């Protein structure tokens, strides 16, 4: 709506200037425009990436983590640092992410004689560390669970515009949203029958997660 207003105003101003040279017409001035929304441009590429979800609103970016086609893994974790104008949103149960159900987080074959605790703790946790950095981990704890394809959204996060902090920035500014660390548990984590094999493969693998551009509007 704002854009339309400006468009209408500009021809009117031009007409006034053209018509009223020496006339007494005047235009009221206004202060700088405060950002009130976010725009996100999905990153290019087909590797790990954060893509915008349709449920996003002008002031809330809802982003899904999607992995590359053809890859299977056992979980993912990353640290995402955001500029001060952005605020990570707690989405439920005090967590800053929603598990999209791709990974099997629980004990897949519980021993009936030693059942899991209730509620069963899972390797899914989030937090916002000092410096406005979201830290997030979502992993399968049970190596008997098979690795899963990740070419559909595996988790969802959300960031809100922080109006107070954004007011110091200009409309059109880009704000930083950077991955500082990202790892997965790979598909092959060694054969249970071989301690040597398991020890050699007990390592997470670094990945790159592409993040799109965030603009204030």
């Amino acid at each position, binding site marked *: 709506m704002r854009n339309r207003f400006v468009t209408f105003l500009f021809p009117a101003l031009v007409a006034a200037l053209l018509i009223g040279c020496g006339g007494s017409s005047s235009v009221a001035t206004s202060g700088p425009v405060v950002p009130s929304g976010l725009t996100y441009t999905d990153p290019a590429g087909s590797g790990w990436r954060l893509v915008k979800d349709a449920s996003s609103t002008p002031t809330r970016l809802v982003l899904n983590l999607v992995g590359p086609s053809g890859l299977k893994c056992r979980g993912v974790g990353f640290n995402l640092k955001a500029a001060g104008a952005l605020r*990570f949103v707690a989405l439920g149960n005090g967590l800053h992410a929603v598990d999209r159900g791709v990974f099997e987080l629980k004990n897949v074959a519980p021993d009936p004689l*030693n059942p*899991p605790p*209730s509620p069963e*703790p899972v*390797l899914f946790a989030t937090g916002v560390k000092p410096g406005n950095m979201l830290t997030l981990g979502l992993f399968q704890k049970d190596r008997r669970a098979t690795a899963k394809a990740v070419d559909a959204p595996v988790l969802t996060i959300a960031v809100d515009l922080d109006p107070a902090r954004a007011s110091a920035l200009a409309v059109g500014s880009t704000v930083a949203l950077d991955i500082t660390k990202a790892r997965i548990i790979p598909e092959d984590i060694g054969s249970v029958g071989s301690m040597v094999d*398991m020890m050699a493969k007990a390592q997470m693998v670094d990945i790159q997660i592409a993040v799109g551009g965030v603009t204030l509007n």
Partner: protein
Amino acid sequence: MRNALRRAVGGFVLGIVAGALPGMAAAPIPHPQWLALKAREPQRAASALATALAARPAPLPGEGLAIRNAFTTREGRTVVRFDQTQAGFRVYGAMGLGHVEADGRITVHGKGLLPGAVPQGVPSLSADQAKAIALSHLGLKGRPLPPKVEQVVFPTALADGLKAAYDPSTRSLSVDRTYSVLGGRPAAAHVWAYQVDVFTRNAEDGITDMRLIIDAATGAVLKKLTNLQTQAAPEVLLPGTPAKGSGMGQYVGNVTLDTTQAEDGTFGLRDGTRGSLPNPYFLAYENIDLTGITTFWEIHTPENWGWLSLYAGKTANLWGDGFPFMDFPHEGDGNGETAAVDAHFGLGLTWDMYRNVFGREGLDGEGTTPFAQVHIRNPGTGMKFDNAMWSNNLYGMFFGDGTYYPDTTFPPDSPMPGNPMGMMSLTELDIAGHELSHGLTFSTAGLIYSGESGGLNEASSDIMGTLVEAYANRPAGQDDTIPDYGTDWLMGSRTRPSGPLRYMRKPSRDHLSADNWYEGLDWMEVHYSSGPMNRCFYYLAQGASASVLDETHSDYLPGGMDGIGNDKAGRIWFKALTEFMTPTTTYVQAGECMLEAAAELYGAASPEAQAVRNALTAINVQAEGMPLLTRVTFPVVHSGGVLGGDPGEFLSRLKIVPQGTAVTVTAAVLNNADTAITLKVGAHRATIASPVDADPTEAGTVNGDGTWTAPLRQGFFFITALSKARPEQFAEGLVLVVNLDADADNEQDAVDLGAAAFSWYLGQTLRPTHSPYGGYTVDDLDVQLFQEAIQTAWNQK
């Protein structure tokens, strides 16, 4: 006014029948009258039950009471203990009391009952399935005796979670994986469950006695306790006639022993004059009618390891040589008999004190026979054992020989070096009295063996053991009175050459026990949380000094107090334990029970009752009628989940934080307009007497605003909050600092969760960093610690 109308507990408001108010308990009644009342005990108990049932204002459907046991005191009161039931099943930890006086007046007490104990649905598991779960959980090496299984209603507030174990050698806490249970507290307040008792006496596991509570819907272990409290037609064992023998004990010296002369003329250590009902374990599991206190020894030949043998078949009724036990194979000869003399004599003397002073026939008031077993060994190593134990399910006592040796050279024929810090035979008189008195508690109050009730359970045995020691020194002919002298107020003072096991006057002298009550006492191991009540009893009996230089001085009662003597103090405690306490009794409630007992025995306004108030005040327990005490309290951090705790338990206040992160510590001050606090933190205790002296090494300091940076070291840290207005009032909390850097990249974050997955339930960690507290394995407890630490440190609201 003290009366029998107890304060309401949920829907239970229990009242008096027949208008007259109860007054002070009468003196002992004539024996024929007592016998008549005893004979009518079942009817009197039934009347009390009817009264209790009728007094409930609005019982829930299926809610009931059932008589657990009853006994009649010398004053003619029949004390009836009720189990609370739901649909006919017992509610764990709940107990009501009924008192039927000699004149028929009935009062009922409901403070040990738990309101609204109605679980939803029905059990999903069978009793056999619960038994299988319990056996699998315990991982026994050998074959247990047939487990006992009982369906119960379990109040989930009593569920266990994370447990901490105290290492006295380092004065620090560690996560106790043996007794931690990961079942998680169910959301419902009450659930169906199975109580499974698993006990062994075999060569592989030795003597064990464990109680597990299994969730009847999920099979999760909700609670785990030890039942061991550490100091055919059936065959009739050793039939014969009573005979007086002579024994030479290591501790008791030359004594007369009550024995049995068998039909063949030989003698055995069976005392047919004490114990008229058979031992339940022997009857049920060995098909043996064991009636009369009997002392056995443990066989250590390879082919019969762990079996019992009778001290019997002797042609002369002479036992023991008075010298410390040499070692295998002397268990059955004159040297081995020495420990049996001490044990057998001690059990008989304790029995006599119960009978002659307190008017009680044995542990249960009915004369059920306990037994003693000496020369028990460590089942794992086969070596001598530095402890003594009572088992509820085996209904007997077990005494180790101790590992003491004057120096660290190798004793003859021993593969292990000597242990100057070890103990000698644990058959000293006060220890024997202590162990047998666990059976008394088991038969009456049933104090649960953890938390504050566990500390009271241990204190009761220390108190009884001390009184037995005094009783042994009574003047001839004064069998119905405990003298004011005759005890050194030191538990096992001759058992361990390096120092007694515990100090009643000043418990903290062992650098392990607490002197006074404070918030946080309940985390302590029960042999240390017994300290305050031990001290309270000493004060009650012997008084407290007004001089700050005296070890009996109390900062909480600086003017001191006069004691009322061992006999009166013992009667008050015995009455409180057997007639008023219940399984979940806390220190404050124990104080109320003591006041009830003192009022009945001596009058509510008597010097004896005031002495009870003074003694309770002297250990910082709020007593009725005394000035309100300032209290300091930490907030509850969590009340559910795997780490959930009863809000009254210390673990509900435990914070889990990643190392190197900022923590804010807060505590509240109650009953004082000045709410300012001082905060201190320590890696371990400098002295247990004063938690505020916790060693700050490696712990850093708490800033004035309550912020503290957790050090770069995993482990438990003690946090103490003191009232600035009343510095003698403090609370102790705990923080568990964990290292989340499971992937060892020098950064703690949620990405580290992935590394834990590599070792999850593998049997051992692939890398030590995979466990946040450096555990040998990684399991769901580690997962929970990760989650909670991240939530605590980086939970942005």
